[in-house]
Structure formats: C-alpha cells, structure tokens
C-alpha cells in the first residue's frame, strides 16, 4: 500500500529537518522545566489532593506549547513540496490523493505524539520514585492521553489543511495558529455574561478547556470523541478535495 510507503517517508523526513529537532528539544525543555517547577511547588506546599499531572494539563503553558508545536510540525507537509517542486513527482506517481493526505496527517500526528513522550516518562518516574506516589489513577492517565491524541489529531488536521493552501511555510503556520486559536477563543466565551443555556451547552461541547478539565479527573465521555474524530475527518476530506481539485480543474 502506498500509504505505508508514504507514511514511513513522512515520519523519517522529520528526523532530517532542523525545525523538527528544534521543536523536539524546545518541547522537551519546556515540559521538563514546568514539571520540575510544579514538583518543587507541590512538595513545598505539601499538597495532598493536587498532582503535578492535574495542574500541568490545565495550565497556560500547556496550551501555549500545544498551540505552537502543531503549526511548526505541519507547516512543511505540503508547502515544502510545493516550494521544492517535489509535489510534481508525488502527484504523477500512481498514488491516490487520500493516501497522500492521510500519510502526511498520520506522519505529523506521530511526530506530535513523540513530542509528548517526555511527559509520559516524567510521570512514570514520578509514579515509581515519589513517596507517597501522586494521587492519580490509571484511569486519569488514560483519559488524558486519549484527549491529547484527539485534540492533537484535530489540530494536526488543521495544519495539514493550511499547508495545502500555500507554498509559503510561514503563511501556512500562521493560518494554522489562527485556526487553533479560534477554537480556544470559542472555549473562552464560556465566561461571557448573558449567555443562554443552549449556547453554553454548545460551547462546552466544543471546549477543549472542559475536555482536558474532565480528562485529568478521569471522566470518560464519548461526546468529545465524536466531536474530534468527525472534525478531523471533515478537515482531512476538505484537504483531499483541494489536492484532487488541482488535478481536475483547469
């Protein structure tokens, strides 16, 4: 299947890219610093019911990191191929557009998840070596990990979409950031006054603040799953249509 061939190439290309390494080290550094700071803070204050984990996934630095990582990962996926002209080689090979779009999407998503591995290691270390161990259950870890994957998938799909629009990586990254920020902005509207119950229920349905808020408590909910999976699928479909349109419309 061409998908696997393309996926392997896509993933390995991150490890040839300077930008990808910068993002990788930058993320690990930021994650590590936040982790150490929070651990010290909790140890000093002697909190019993709070964990590093819960604070981390609901703090501002986490959002900033998330919003910056994705555009930097995805900006190149199509833009660079347009710029270098390699898209011509790719599109004249006997591969289907959806195979190209999916391979780029899963390649970027895989790299995105690799960026979060240090946090997993930090948590494992904390779980194993701290006494008493942090008050976090496996359920909480599971729902949080799932939410990271789902939100990551949606944002990565937005990045793949903005990358297919332009051969300029900067424009692609800025557009992607703007779209991601728009989803955050919608979530912030919850604190507006005079909102009716219906609007509020919609805001909480799409609010990633709430999704993470619930996830760190270990609450499993199918609605965010439906929301993120369908949004991701929709954005990828639009991307595929745009790519296909280049071949069909004169």
């Amino acid at each position, binding site marked *: 299947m*061409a998908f696997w061939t393309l996926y392997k190439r896509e993933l390995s290309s991150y490890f040839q890219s300077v930008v990808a390494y910068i993002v990788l080290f930058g993320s690990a550094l930021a994650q590590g610093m936040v982790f150490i700071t929070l651990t010290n803070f909790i140890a000093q204050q002697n909190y019993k019911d709070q964990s590093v984990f819960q604070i981390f996934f609901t703090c501002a630095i986490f959002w900033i990191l998330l919003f910056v990582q994705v555009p930097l990962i995805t900006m190149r996926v199509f833009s660079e191929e347009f710029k270098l002209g390699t898209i011509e*080689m790719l*599109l*004249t*090979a006997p591969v289907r557009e959806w195979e190209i779009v999916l391979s780029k999407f899963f390649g970027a998503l895989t790299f995105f998840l690799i960026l979060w591995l240090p946090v997993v290691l930090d948590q494992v270390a904390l779980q194993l070596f701290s006494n008493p161990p942090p008050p976090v259950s496996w359920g909480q870890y599971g729902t949080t990990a799932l939410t990271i994957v789902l939100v990551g998938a949606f944002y990565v799909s937005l990045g793949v979409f903005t990358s297919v629009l332009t051969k300029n990586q900067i424009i692609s990254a800025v557009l992607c950031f703007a779209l991601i920020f728009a989803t955050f902005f919608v979530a912030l509207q919850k604190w507006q006054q005079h909102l009716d119950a219906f609007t509020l229920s919609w805001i909480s349905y799409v609010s990633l603040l709430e999704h993470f808020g619930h996830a760190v408590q270990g609450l499993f909910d199918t609605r965010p799953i439906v929301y993120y999976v369908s949004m991701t699928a929709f954005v990828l479909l639009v991307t595929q249509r745009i790519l296909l349109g280049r071949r069909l419309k*004169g």
Partner: protein
Amino acid sequence: MIEVENLSKTYSGVHAVRNISFHVNKGEIVGFLGPNGAGKSTTMKVLAGYLPPTDGKIRIAGYDVITESLEVRKRIGYMPENVPLYTDMRVNEFLRFRAELKKVARRRIKDRVETVKELCHLKDVGSKIIGTLSKGYRQRVGLADAMVHDPDLLILDEPTIGLDPNQIRSVRDLIRDLGKHHTILLSTHILSEVELTCGRVLVIHRGRIEASDTPANLTRLVRGGGSILLEVKAPSADVVARIQPLPNIEDVEIVLPGTGDWTVAKIFAKPGVDVREDIFGVVRQNNWPLRELARVKATLEEAFVELTQD
C-alpha cells in the same frame, strides 16, 4: 500510445498551449523541439496528469488522462523539468521509495533499483545524499526514477539539460537503447539532440505545433534541403546580378562581401534541382577566378529557425 486532440492550456490568462493535436505510436521516440517558453513543459505536465488541460482530450494507452488518471500514471515514467527530488534522501533509499510508490512487486524492487542504477551510471553514488550530488547526477537519478517501474511510456522533460558532453552522449545512448522497448516522448531545445535520438520531431512554437516529421524530412523541407556555396573573385553586386536571373534559383545571399575581391555567396535553388552546372557556366562566362563551388546540406538548425521565426 499518446493521442492528443485539441489540447489547450491557459495559465490564468496566459495561453501556454493553443489547440494542439498529435499522436505518438507505440515504439516511437518522438522529440518535442521548441525554444524556451514554447509550451513543451506545459504539454508534458498535462500528459503526465499533473496539470489539468483547459480544453481538449488526451488518451494514453487508451486511458483518459483525467478520468482514468491512476491507470495512466501507472504506465508512465515521467521526469519533470529541473528534476525536483527529496534532497534529504539517499539515492538507494529514494529509488526504493519510488519503486514502492509505483507498485513494483516487493521481491522485484531490489532488482529493479540495481538495474536502473546500472543503466544510469549511478552505481558509485548509491549511498550518497541526493542534496550533495551534482546537477548531472541528480538528472540521472530523475531518469532512473522515471524508469524504475519499467513503464510503457517515458515522458522526459529536457533529459540532458545541465549535463556535460560525455554525460549527454551516455544519456543519448541510453535513450536510444530504451527506445527499442519503450515509447519515448522527450523535449529539448537542443537540435543535435533530436537529430541523434528521435525518429520524429514535433516542432512547437508559441503553443502551436508548427511541424511534425522525421528530422531528415524536416531539413529537406527547408529551402529545398540545401544551398550552394560559391566563392569567386568578383564584386558582390555582380554575383547577385548574374546568378539571380538563372532558372530555378530562388535566392542569392551574400555571406561575406569579399576579402580582397573575393565574395562568398549562398545560393538557394528550387527543391530537387541541381544548379551547379549553370552556376559554373556564369563563372566561366565572366572569367571569375573560382575558389569554391560546393553543395551544403541544410541542417535541422535551419529548419528550426525557419519554423520558429516570427
């Protein structure tokens, strides 16, 4: 193998290709010849399924380029202009990647990659990173890529551009060799290239096909296929005045208005008529000292200039 009917391609208002039609039969090596900006690359991009035509119908191996694009792409080996490659990959890795993409059976991949590396003289750079290769090597990696799945049809956009003379010769030999089993459409703006490799030439100019014939016939077409070179000791004006009125003479052109009193003239006759005897008659009558009277075969270059003149 290729059937193009009334193909037009417009880039947001710029007419790159205007209503062209041509056929390429199985087993032919056809050269697309034209000056820069003539529309060669555009036509090839449309044939390869990269760009949609603005208008027209194209079938390759019986499949429609737009509606059956995947079938067409399976059968084509396309080398784009300027050979865009993934510069971070190694040659071996890249060729294996492309072979997989082009659905070469898994057990044949190694074999095919070795074969095309052999054919394109890439044996010694297999483990080099493409970004570090010279233009000539990259060109050959592009060529190897185009052939790796052993396609029926090769579409090569300027395959020898940027190569040194030795490399050009080896690519030419390779193309001629491939032509024994494949159909090839190649583009070039170098005349000697088509003369040496192609069975047929399509001359394209300003998006239109100006001629389609064998290189030999094309040169014959131009001013009867040749001219006569005359060098005599006489004033240029006299030479024109005496020779022009002879029967079957189309044109007398002064090449050099004489060193000392010597004049060099180029004389064009009607097709198929040998006028050397008549010219010698004039020379003898006037007692002009004679240095040279020779027939010069027209070159494809002249045909090209004639066809693409404004």
